[in-house]
């Protein structure tokens, strides 16, 4: 009975089965079918809008009528390369670099502990603890930091309780990083950037550390290397691509952020803020577009330098 009912199905396979057989025989076609939606998304929406922005940056704003003149030219870039704008770019790049370097130093020990020493339960807990802040709104967290770092905030209270008020005041008296209180100083802005982007550094570094086989560390010790030499010659070179991956996140996220500098710090403009203001209040879309090209150029330069330094050799 079963055999009899099976036979027609075998000789006349269903449309579904014929389709799978058809696709199985044509792997290139299946691949194309799978890739077309994401390729369309990337090609039109992502690359396309980048190109549109690039084109916009060569238009210019007519200062008299306040209208965008759709003619190719370098006037906008002339407006971009002024001293005030160079200050913004320098400040942003410096902040991004400081956040990235500090992030690497803070994240490494945490990631090292997670990957090498923590037991399974502790590790799961730590991954959750690192990821958990990303589940809540970043605006809420930044505002929370504003209150934490305020003059009447809990951080100041704690510092005065342990008798370090004098140290904090001395630090806040430094001209370029200090201010009235931490929440309105560049130093406070740096701390908040560091906090907000730290998970993006910890996760790739921990992943890279987990991929280093224990036997490599044992082999290094076996060949006479003390733990610090093993770290220098084996662990660090193998984990460096992970640090670079993390730094791409922290660096580019800091370069482009426009919300945190408006909430924390002394209101000095950053690239993101400049873009936001030029395209919004000022209506100068070409200059905003030209400004957006800047972090991309900085990132490209950063990656080229990282590659030259051999950051990706161990990949």
């Amino acid at each position, binding site marked *: 009975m079963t055999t009899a009912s099976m036979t027609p199905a075998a000789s006349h396979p269903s449309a579904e089965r014929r389709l799978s057989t058809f696709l199985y025989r044509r792997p290139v076609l299946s691949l194309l079918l799978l890739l077309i939606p994401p390729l369309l998304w990337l090609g039109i929406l992502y690359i396309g809008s980048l190109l549109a922005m690039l084109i916009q940056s060569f238009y210019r704003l007519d200062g008299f009528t306040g209208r965008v003149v759709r003619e190719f030219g370098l006037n906008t870039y002339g407006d971009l390369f002024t001293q005030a704008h160079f200050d913004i770019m320098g400040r942003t790049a410096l902040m991004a670099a400081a956040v990235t370097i500090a992030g690497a130093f803070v994240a490494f020990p945490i990631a090292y502990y997670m990957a090498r020493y923590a037991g399974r339960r502790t590790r799961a807990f730590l991954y959750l603890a690192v990821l958990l802040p990303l589940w809540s709104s970043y605006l809420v967290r930044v505002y929370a930091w504003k209150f934490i770092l305020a003059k009447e905030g809990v951080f100041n209270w704690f510092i005065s309780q342990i008798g370090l008020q004098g140290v904090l005041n001395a630090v806040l008296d430094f001209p370029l990083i200090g201010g009235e209180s931490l929440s309105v100083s560049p130093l406070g802005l740096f701390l908040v950037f560091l906090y907000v982007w730290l998970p993006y550094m910890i996760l790739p570094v921990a992943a890279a550390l987990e991929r280093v*086989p224990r036997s490599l560390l*044992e082999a*290094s010790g*076996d*060949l006479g*290397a003390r733990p610090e030499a093993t770290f220098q*010659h084996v662990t660090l070179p*193998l984990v460096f691509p992970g640090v670079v991956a993390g730094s791409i996140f922290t660096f580019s996220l800091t370069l482009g952020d426009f919300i945190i500098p408006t909430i924390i710090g002394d209101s000095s403009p950053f690239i993101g803020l400049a873009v936001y203001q030029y395209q919004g209040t000022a209506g100068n879309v070409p200059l905003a577009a030209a400004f957006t090209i800047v972090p991309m150029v900085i990132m490209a330069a950063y990656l080229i330098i990282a590659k030259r330094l051999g950051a990706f050799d*161990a990949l």
Partner: protein
Amino acid sequence: MNPCEGAKREPSQGFANPLDENRIVANDSVPAVRLSGVSRHFGEVKALDNIHLDIVDGEFFSMLGPSGSGKTTCLRLIAGFDQPTAGRIELHGEDVTDLPPYERSVNTVFQDYALFPHMNVADNVGYGLMIKKAPRPERMKRVSEMLDLVQLPGMEQRKPSQLSGGQRQRVALARALIMHPRVLLLDEPLGALDLKLRQQMQIELKAIQQRVGITFIYVTHDQEEALTMSDRLAVFNHGRIEQIGTPAEAYEHPATPFAAGFVGVSNLISGATAQAISGTPDTFSIRPEKINIQAPGVVVPDGYCSANGRIRDVVYLGMYTRYLVELDGGADLTVVRQNLDETSMDVLANRGRPVLLTWQREHNRPIAALS
């Protein structure tokens, strides 16, 4: 009690029964490695339990056993990657139990080779010298000597990812040997290689060991490998050493049922079957290649054991044939005969035939059953 023990033993080679507390020290000189009462427990699991072992300077010593028998744990304790729960470890008379790996004069060839993926072959092989801050020209000279020794001349600039399994294995060997260790530890180094390459590397490893004249401690689960290469071997099981001896001793005089079964193939005969064959119910082992297959009714000469049975199964293996013979008493015996004159047709036709098995009584190996 083993009646065969004693007479054939060479004075320089120890044969220790694990049940016998009076360990026979191999010779008077200081052993390369001495383990005294070494244990490694992981919670309830006794990975190694009260190991006493002397390894003679300059010998090729194998640690043989199935996975989980404690042989790799033992090697890691000697290298210093792990600390024993109890007992002391000495290298050339010096107690190294509390020393970290980088202060022990042993080097290791790892099972997965553990080559540094971000360094080329020269930097891998020269790593230990670089750590010792040897000047670069000397380092490069010794690297190239080492690559000659392991037959990889001119491979300095390759990355490990560009090498075959056998080549990586040689680089790992060169990287360990360049340190001139007095003891080299090898953790199943040939496990990932195919049969032909493995056999070739066995011969090469042995030749290199004789050339450099240092102690090799070789961990393997492959009894053939251990028998081929070793001067002496230890059979590990459940964290204990079942037998220590030369390959010939381990093969011909297995000390325990486990050793008899793990080193080569053995027929273990006990109880009523043993009573019928040898006159006593004591367990003994008989190797499959010692047994003759004859027609039933043949007169059994003096000094021979015999048993009647039927050939239940025939496995033709080219060079030889393996027969499974069901004895009239019920037990199964494995018999191996070389295919001298027989073709596969001949041997396969033997299936189902009644036969008389005969073997010299002196090949019976009494085995003390472990409690």
